[in-house]
């Protein structure tokens, strides 16, 4: 097969969180890697047979890396397949994502990791990585085959939405995973306080008569998880921090040198509990939406770097699972296609510099996963997104690429249109003119 022609991206606004550069420039991709980067000006000496793309001042950044994506494969392919998720990712400028192990069967055994990674190899639209279960069947009782799953290629372990209730089990998972340098992602929550809850406790949930749990449950859970991380020396990934109280606990642990990385979901950065409105189940999420004070604290924590990583928390659910009474509806929303424009809100609002926001979806997750992507450096993988930062978009859930259309952003007016997405040097997405 003939090698693809090298591509030169000229007249771009390069944003590279690794070097800290945000300014005009150009970049050349050859094969699967970035081969040359010009900061400050375009290449003037381009020669040979190459494709030149005029970026017209659009942002050229490393492709996004999303640490928390659910598909329905295996087990619930009507919700989302690995392929449909990859296509949604490409449309959203996400070039790598980590699928969660709460499938059917669960990814708690190396053969399922192998199955997913084999399927992923045939999909060009995005790089698909796989997280494994921390405990068998995600039941929080027996340690899963973490070592064997590591060998099979899994990148971290997590019981996803299920908190490991038994502290002794979580301690052993952490201690064991550390042997294999596997990070443990854990949802910070006291499950007793939030049992049966569909919303955050407060005036609003009280008026709606929704079963609710206090936001404090997150801080209680997080304090325990942080203490166990300190005890075992394991790498802890705090899976979706959402509340101001938990952020304070996180800051204290980081100051003490606990090996902890924290994620926030784009949903909790974008919505508060009032978005539930008149029982709008598309805003039913897990963890549930918090107060506006919590949301503001989360944006500040992202801007200050206390929160390291932003995830889409992509959780496809078909309409029949959403069009139910609120407490019966499945929580979660699709997010791969809306992650970038929703994140850019905080840039347009002047809450954080563009490069810092981009770091949370590129370099920071790449560093956490030990990937060489997430940066614009010669030799790095050519995973790129070209985005018109100012272009207005109205999110129309029906037009999403994802198989499921359960987007909490439906109808939202955002700014930032993905123009092109490149994975391993290949153009996997191009916006309609």
């Amino acid at each position, binding site marked *: 097969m003939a090698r693809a022609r090298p591509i030169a991206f000229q007249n771009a606004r390069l944003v590279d969180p690794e070097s800290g550069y945000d300014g005009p420039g150009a970049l050349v991709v050859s094969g699967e890697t970035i081969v040359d980067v010009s900061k400050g000006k375009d290449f003037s000496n381009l020669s040979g047979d190459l494709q030149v793309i005029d970026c017209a001042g659009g942002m050229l950044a490393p492709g996004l890396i999303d640490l928390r994506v659910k598909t329905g494969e295996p087990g619930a392919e009507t919700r989302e397949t690995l392929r449909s998720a990859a296509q949604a990712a490409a449309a959203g400028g996400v070039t790598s994502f980590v699928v969660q192990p709460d499938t059917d069967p669960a990814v708690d055994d190396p053969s399922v990791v192998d199955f997913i990674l084999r399927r992923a190899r045939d999909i060009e639209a995005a790089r698909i990585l796989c997280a494994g279960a921390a405990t068998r069947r995600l039941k929080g009782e027996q340690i899963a085959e973490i070592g064997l799953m590591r060998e099979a290629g899994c990148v971290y372990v997590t019981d996803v939405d299920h908190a490991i209730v038994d502290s002794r089990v979580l301690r052993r998972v952490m201690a064991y995973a550390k042997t294999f340098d596997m990070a443990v992602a854990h949802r910070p929550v006291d499950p007793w306080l939030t049992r049966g809850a569909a919303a955050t406790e407060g*005036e609003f949930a009280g008026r709606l*008569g929704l*079963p609710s749990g206090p936001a404090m449950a997150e801080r209680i859970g997080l304090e325990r998880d942080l203490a166990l991380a300190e005890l075992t020396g394991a790498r802890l990934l705090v899976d979706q921090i959402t509340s101001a109280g938990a952020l304070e606990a996180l800051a204290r642990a980081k100051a003490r040198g606990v090996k902890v990385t924290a994620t926030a979901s784009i949903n909790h950065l974008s919505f508060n509990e009032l978005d539930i409105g008149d*029982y709008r189940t598309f805003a039913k999420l897990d963890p549930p939406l918090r107060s506006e004070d919590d949301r503001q604290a989360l944006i500040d924590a992202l801007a200050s770097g206390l929160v390291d990583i932003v995830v889409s928390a992509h959780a496809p659910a078909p309409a029949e699972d959403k*069009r139910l*009474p*609120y407490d019966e509806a499945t929580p979660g929303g699709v997010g791969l296609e809306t992650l970038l424009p929703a994140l850019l809100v905080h840039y347009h609002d002047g809450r954080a510099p563009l490069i810092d926001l981009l770091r949370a979806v590129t370099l920071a997750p790449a560093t956490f996963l030990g990937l060489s992507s997430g940066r614009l450096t010669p030799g790095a993988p050519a995973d790129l997104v070209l985005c018109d930062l100012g272009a207005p978009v109205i999110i129309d859930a029906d037009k999403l690429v994802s198989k499921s259309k359960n987007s909490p952003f439906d109808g939202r007016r955002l700014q930032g249109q993905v123009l092109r997405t490149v994975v391993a040097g290949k153009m996997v997405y191009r916006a309609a003119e």
Partner: protein
Amino acid sequence: MTAFAPGIDDVRARTFPFPRRHFLSAMDVNVVEAQQLLDLADGFVALNRQTTKKLDLLKGRTLMNLFFENSTRTQASFELAGKRLGADVMNMSVKTSSVAKGETLIDTAVTLNAMQPDLLVVRHASSGAAALLSQKVGCSVINAGDGQHEHPTQALLDALSMRRAFGHVAGLTVAICGDVMHSRVARSNVNLLNILGAEVRLVGPPTLMPAGAEHWGATVYHDLEKGIAGADVVMMLRLQLERMQGALVPSTREYFRFWGLDREKLKAASGGVKVMHPGPMNRGVEIDSDVADDPAVSLIQDQVEMGVAARMAVLASLAARLDNH
């Protein structure tokens, strides 16, 4: 405003088109509309006491009672209200039928909607279920209780009982006592009583008081006697006996000791105090029989009678709106 004996013409004259297609929350009406509904209900009380109770205001209309939760009295009340107004009434107890076969609420709603009902009365265990259903049907939906959210016709009948006892609702001090957290009756009453200008207090142990209740337009008390001090109306709420398991209250006897209403504690209230209860009562748990059965203070039997009249008012008003559209 006092109860006189109006004829059918009077009721017709008082009937007005309901402001909305559905009646889902006590907040669906403003103060004027609430007063109009109470006036209309007053007329029905008088008619209901006559030998010939049958009217033709809903003639040709179909009323469907769709109950996903068991409720003898509310269902009977709506059934009677519909029949007295001349509607064809159908009762669907869905708990034992299609829902058990995996049919969703919306599937059921769409199926029933195809049968062209005019009025759909819904009770469901989930908050917001009536609102969800109302988005999917072409008829008027009346919320007969959705989870822990609202039960607006109960609030209306309670207001009617109070107005008939005191002559007015505005200015009354009403203490709603007990399991506020799980009570849709409490939420609807707080909303409607605020609209009508009453002073509302919520009284109960902190474990049964929802977070933020102090922002609902009510004062929160955790001490029963302080909470009912000087109150004109003491409304006791039913304590579900399964609350013992959830570590919400230690025992029925301890609950009765501190939160149950008896003659002694009632002395703290105002001289002409009236006691109410949405029923069914747990005698000796939240209320002493001595108080509940005393016709001098108890409005509990009146509430049941007012229930039929208040629901007739709502049905007639919603049907009047249907006539116009």
